[in-house]
């Protein structure tokens, strides 16, 4: 049984050639609206079959690739890029602006290297600003915004699933510590650790308070937010809604609609309810099912041999302490909305049943290795944790002026290295052209590994880079 409804027009686009003539009347080829908008006319729920999931993700891909037009509601003349619906004091001077946005026509305008959903080079950097006090800026001066390169989204569903499980672990540890402190009437200090990653410690008090001053690399609410260079976005759904408004002026009703703003056309562009729940769900489903990057040598045995040595160097230099090669994931069932989404993003408490996308239905996911416990080993080369990336000797990665959502300007989430061989240039600003430069730019918490790399032999460095360049984005 279908767990969501597709409207006729998009069903045609998805290869169901029924009543094509009628559909063409609805959506002729010359129509300048995006046909995929509104195609998912109900909120997906329950566990989708493979064919249902394919239908949904095809709609998601169409939305991700669509160059939104003013007939769709693109543009936000009376709304800023802010994640909270915010009116500017003055209407923006330009309908598009590469600085304060809207700065792109389609998601795929930037996320396209080497495939749709991939990364983008320096030409696609975006300028991240809160959008509250100075929403309309026409300068790249870092006093107004943080310049950010476009990350790839491959394997993003696995990343979010890992973050959910890690958050659940941390919350369980906190709950048990509080409970023990209450029961024993004594303070209890615990090490916070999940999937082998340490997040510092927490002291629970008998009165239910928690001393969080010793946390490391995670927010005070112990929620792992895996997305964004700073690790400040908790889910693909939240990210999608943020980005749709900021980059395209396409506003999702679940945040900008009447329920929260009393207006169906918050940005006052003449188009109401520009993106419905089903549209966002389709986008999430597509991103969540993007295949994980792989290791690939193009059949080049010399490369493979060198990369194998490089993998050992990677470990020897300590790179793997943060860029952990793989983290275990117990479930491949991706629920949308997720357990940590809150108001402003469709949340679990706002639907009767979440949709469940079983990633194990997908061929690429079935090929992922598993450990003895049956956990999927997600080869992300990351730890979903924030680290300080600068020190007094090297501030190259600390070249920003603005903190982002409570995160200090020198602190960044560990970049997952999977796919790095396909996504040059590097760094959070995409302004570093080689991996060698990128490694040498590390500092702060990565100082020891960075120095070890600098002191390594040329052959070891070459092997390491050969290894990194073998972490590539492949097909589905």
């Amino acid at each position, binding site marked *: 049984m279908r767990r969501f409804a597709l409207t006729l027009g998009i069903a045609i686009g998805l290869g169901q050639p029924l009543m094509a003539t009628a559909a063409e009347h609805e959506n002729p080829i010359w129509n300048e609206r995006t046909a995929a908008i509104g195609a998912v006319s109900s909120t997906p729920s329950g566990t989708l079959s493979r064919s249902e999931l394919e239908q949904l993700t095809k709609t998601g891909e169409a939305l991700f690739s669509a160059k939104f037009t003013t007939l769709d509601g693109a543009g936000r003349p009376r709304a800023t890029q802010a994640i909270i619906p*915010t009116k500017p004091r003055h209407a923006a001077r330009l309908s598009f602006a590469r600085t304060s946005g809207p700065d792109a026509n389609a998601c795929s305008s930037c996320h396209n290297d080497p495939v749709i959903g991939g990364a983008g080079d320096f030409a696609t950097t975006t300028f991240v600003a809160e959008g509250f006090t100075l929403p309309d800026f026409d300068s790249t001066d870092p006093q107004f915004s943080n310049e950010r390169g476009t990350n790839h989204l491959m394997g993003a569903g696995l990343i979010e699933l890992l973050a959910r499980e890690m958050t659940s672990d941390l919350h369980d540890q906190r709950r048990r510590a509080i409970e023990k402190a*209450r029961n024993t009437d004594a303070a209890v200090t615990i090490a916070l650790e999940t999937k082998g990653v340490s997040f510092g410690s927490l002291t629970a008090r008998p009165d239910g308070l928690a001393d969080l001053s010793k946390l490391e690399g995670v927010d005070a609410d112990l929620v792992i937010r895996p997305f964004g260079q700073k690790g400040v976005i908790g889910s693909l759904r939240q990210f999608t809604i943020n980005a749709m408004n900021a980059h395209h002026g396409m506003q999702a009703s679940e945040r900008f609609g*009447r329920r929260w703003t009393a207006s169906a056309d918050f940005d006052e562009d003449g188009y109401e309810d520009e993106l419905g729940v089903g549209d966002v769900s389709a986008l999430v489903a597509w991103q969540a099912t993007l295949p994980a990057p792989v290791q690939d040598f193009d059949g080049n045995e010399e490369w493979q041999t060198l990369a194998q040595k490089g993998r050992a160097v990677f470990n020897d230099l300590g790179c793997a302490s943060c860029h952990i090669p793989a983290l275990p994931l117990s479930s491949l069932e991706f629920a949308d909305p997720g357990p940590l989404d809150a*108001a402003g993003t469709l949340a679990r408490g706002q639907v009767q049943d979440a949709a469940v996308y079983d990633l194990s239905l997908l061929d690429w996911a079935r090929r992922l290795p598993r450990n003895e416990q049956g956990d999927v080993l997600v080869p992300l080369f990351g730890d979903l944790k924030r680290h300080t990336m600068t020190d007094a000797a090297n501030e190259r990665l600390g070249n920003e002026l603005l903190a982002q959502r409570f995160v200090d300007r020198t602190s960044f989430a560990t970049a997952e290295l999977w796919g790095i061989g396909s996504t040059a240039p590097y760094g959070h600003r995409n302004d570093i052209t080689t991996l060698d430069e990128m490694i040498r730019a590390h500092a702060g918490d990565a100082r020891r590994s960075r120095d070890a790399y600098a002191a390594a032999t040329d052959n070891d460095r070459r092997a390491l880079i050969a290894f990194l360049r073998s972490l590539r984005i492949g097909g589905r």
Partner: protein
Amino acid sequence: MMSSSSNSLALKLALTLALALPVTSVSTLAMATGIEIAKAPPSAEAEFPFDTPSLTEQASEAGLDHVYDGPWEYFVGGGAASFDCNGDRMPDLLLAGGANPAQLFVNRSLAGGALEFQSQDLGLGQNRSTKVLGAYPIDIDNDAVTDVVLLRLGENLILKGLGDCEFAVANRSLGFDGGRAWSTGFSAIWEKDAKRPTLAIGNYVDQTAPGSPWGTCEDNTLHRPVGTEGTYEVTALTPGHCSLSLAFTDWNNSGQADLRITNDRQYHRGGQEQLWQMRSGSPPRLYRTAEGWKPLTIWGMGIAQADLNGDGMPEYALTSMGDTKLQTLAEEADETRPHYRDIAFDKGVTAHRPYKGADLKPSTGWHAQFADLNNDAHLDLFIAKGNVEAMPDFAAFDPDNLLMGNGADGFTERGAEAGIALDRKGRGAVIEDFNADGMLDLLVVNRGSPTSLFRNRGARADWGHRSMGNWLAIELQNTGANRNAVGAKIHIKTGNLNQTRIVQIGGGHASGQLGFVHVGLGVAERARVRVQWPDGEWSHEYRVFANNFTVIDRAEDSAQYWYPR
């Protein structure tokens, strides 16, 4: 004559009541007056796009069986105190009973679970637990255990909290003279550098005066601490105009709280609403007409204050019979001139008659409280309603109001949709998150019928209830005296929205609360919080994540998080 706003389009109904009934019934008391009935406010019929909370009455299931009742003296009063009496940070309840005994209910609810209370003996005995009209929590002796002030017909009592929800009468040890009046209102503030709070007691009719009850209002009293321990010095606030609620308030954002009193014109003669200027070390004095104070006479029952327009100076909702007032400083006002104008009609909160049923007679309003019950970052206004007893010219079926903030336009009545339109005579109330689920619940003490306890289930959906906006709960811990930081202002910033909450003891109708301060955040997932402590000092910025209980200790750099059971 009740004051009218120039744009209220008020209709005057001349009501002349028969005066033949015995004096033991308020319905018999003389009321020959003009009552203004406003036409339907502009927003009353407006569509309400935001969430309406589903409030389900379940007092009995929660183990909270209580009735406030009694003869004429208990037609007013019916208060509740909400506070933590056993150190678990969950709000417990002490309910006035009038002729019935006051009762203590210990909160046994689990986070997100069903509301559950357990009755526990107050330990006062029959004589002292009866004749209670109101209750306000306060930590008078600064020992981090909350005490309670009981307003009574006769001697008022300070119950010193001993922990584990046990109390002892402490009038003598605290040097407090409980008097012998008919007390109906309370407020407290720590004046400059004071180690103990100044207490204001609102009194109603002096029944011993010749000609009582008309024109025989009892003076209110101000109890100022003498020294750091010792006694309280009592000052009569003369004239008294039969007050039913009073509140210390920093009306001009000067850092100095004055005392606002609402008075019942039913019994005073030539009286009016009052604002007493309070200066440490000086006797209080009334603001005069020459200073901008505009005389206003209403059947004042309750006061609620909140800064609705973000100018740092609170607006005041004043409940009455007929129109509720909503006052804001007029253009002619300045920091020395408390000149107010009424915006109740403009904002849609006149709430002058029942919104449900066929009875179009005027309403009778009692407790008023601003709070965000749907977590949409817009304050809502709750008003307890109920006929005094059987006054024939006022609505008999008079449901409580839930006037929900609708953004810039004002408020929209959603009481019926929320489920609170019961046929009970509301008096005092508490809006509090009793089960630590992030949604404010509602307790209403009713005269002559069971106390109502509404659990907030979220917004109704086809399949059940759905979650509403994000929220934050904030507890302040001050250093030194005034540990609960009474008088502090909490500024919560999300995006460009600034919300303010005031930590206060007083106002409402005979009801008060102490504990976490609840803030709805709408779609914001984090907030920046600054505190202006009672001594005027501003804190640094605390960065906190939504949907959490946070504790801001003045001595700590970061906010702490609290986790309920």
